[in-house]
């Protein structure tokens, strides 16, 4: 999966702090995400993974610290600047956030209708292409409530990708799906990323499955990100919190597995 990718930093969090009332959720979070890579943020529920994502999307402002996207500080970008940055984003929300009063076709067509001057014929061509990519060609005229959770996720992914974004955010993309449907979402993610070369930021606790797709993994715990490393290094990390997380989610790593993991490490 890991290749010689562009090393440009697309998103950078610099010592970000955030609290809600008395609760400190982010306590000096720093992270750099490089173009074309897949970075996975893992961690237990309620640790602030989605809060990090919302900061990257500009939906939340940090109490202190900076969030820079494409080199621009989001806090200083202004409404217009923020819209320009977001025009390069695609987002798959945890609960999909499809517009339930619109058909799946109209949901996918919405960004094209609102953000481009494309003709209806052109929009139809692009939407049908994305729906076909997601295996939803026969379901475009249905409303989100009329299709399964897996189909809703695929429709959400089609909407996120319809403008060929540079960065795609996935907030718990497989929550509520069974194993088969989860695998389907991961397969679609892999295929579309190979095809469209976008940078991916995934918030997930689907361990260890998500490690197969990741270039970098980081753990959110105690208000901070615990390193950012390859999945193999993550599983062998000496960091106490990471070791504990790996043990809780994957069980103990035995010596034979350690050797296998070490063989993946690049020299």
């Amino acid at each position, binding site marked *: 999966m890991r290749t010689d990718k562009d090393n440009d930093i697309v998103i950078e969090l610099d010592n970000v702090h955030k609290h809600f009332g008395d609760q400190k959720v982010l306590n000096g979070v720093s992270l750099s995400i490089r173009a074309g890579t897949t970075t996975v943020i893992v961690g237990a529920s309620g640790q602030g993974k989605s809060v990090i994502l919302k900061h990257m999307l500009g939906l939340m402002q940090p109490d202190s610290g900076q969030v820079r996207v494409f080199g621009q500080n989001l806090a200083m970008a202004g409404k217009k600047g923020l819209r320009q940055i977001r025009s390069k984003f695609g987002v798959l929300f*945890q609960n999909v956030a499809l*517009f339930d009063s619109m058909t799946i076709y109209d949901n996918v067509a919405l960004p094209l209708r*609102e953000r481009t001057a494309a003709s209806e014929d052109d929009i139809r061509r692009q939407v049908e292409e994305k729906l076909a990519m997601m295996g939803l060609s026969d379901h475009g005229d249905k409303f989100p409530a009329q299709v399964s959770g897996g189909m809703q996720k695929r429709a959400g992914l089609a*909407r996120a990708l319809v403008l060929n974004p540079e960065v795609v955010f996935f907030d718990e993309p497989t929550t509520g799906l069974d194993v088969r449907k989860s695998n389907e979402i991961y397969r679609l993610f892999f295929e579309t990323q190979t095809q469209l070369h976008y940078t991916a930021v995934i918030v997930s606790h689907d361990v260890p499955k998500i490690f197969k797709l990741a270039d970098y993994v980081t753990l959110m715990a105690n208000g901070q990100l615990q390193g950012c490393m390859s999945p193999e290094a993550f599983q062998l990390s000496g960091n106490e919190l990471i070791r504990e997380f790996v043990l809780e989610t994957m069980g103990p790593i035995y010596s034979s597995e350690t050797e296998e993991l070490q063989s993946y490490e690049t020299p």
Partner: protein
Amino acid sequence: MKIIALLGRETLRTLETLGRFGMFLALSLYCAVTPPYKVMPIVRQIRFIGANSLFVIMFTGLFTGMVLSLQGYYTLTKFDSVGFLGAAVSLSLIRELGPVLGALMVIGRAGSAICAEIGIMRNSEQIDALECMAIDPYRFLVVPKMVAGIIAMPLLTFIFDVIGILGGFLIGVELFGVSAGSYFHGMYSAVVWHDIEMGLVKSLVFGLLMVWICSAKGFYLHKERDGGFGAEGVSRTTTSAVVIASVAVLVWDYLISAILL
């Protein structure tokens, strides 16, 4: 000491809410007057707020006119002035009852739906999704409703007035035997352009108030849940939006009357 702290907290909270609502109105109006302009979403909202409210407006207007005529006839006979029945009914409807009752009916029917719709969109991250897609939620969600409210409310008020006057005619002329000529002549001689202007100004303001308050309450559901989360939060916020919008209509009714009289 606790009372002072509570008072301070509540004052700050109220100021914050007023500021938020003020910004919401300013941003919505700015988006409404700047391009790109999209007609179809406005037409769809005029259908929802206006056309779909027709039945309730006609029904309410008819019975309001009928009861005005009934009470008016009873009062005017005491002063031997039944000839003023048409004037009393029409002036009451055009200046006060048409705009106010029409607005209250539309708030109950469409305002509550607007608040619930936007509130559910906030709860299910659909508004966040719009922002992440670089689509302005004010322009996409609020402006069509606001423009439609401003267009639809005067039209609904006009229909309310006409049906109310006919309701008054039914009771006064058909039931109590007041002469039709006297009913309409009284109306014709009493109603002047200033009365119609007052009704028009009120209905325009009420249309804006309804959409503003109901949309903003739904839009900021996450910031002022009125004591509830999820479905309960939507339900409480909707109730609160309807109450605040209705009270605002009555307060502004007095203010506009006081200014324009």
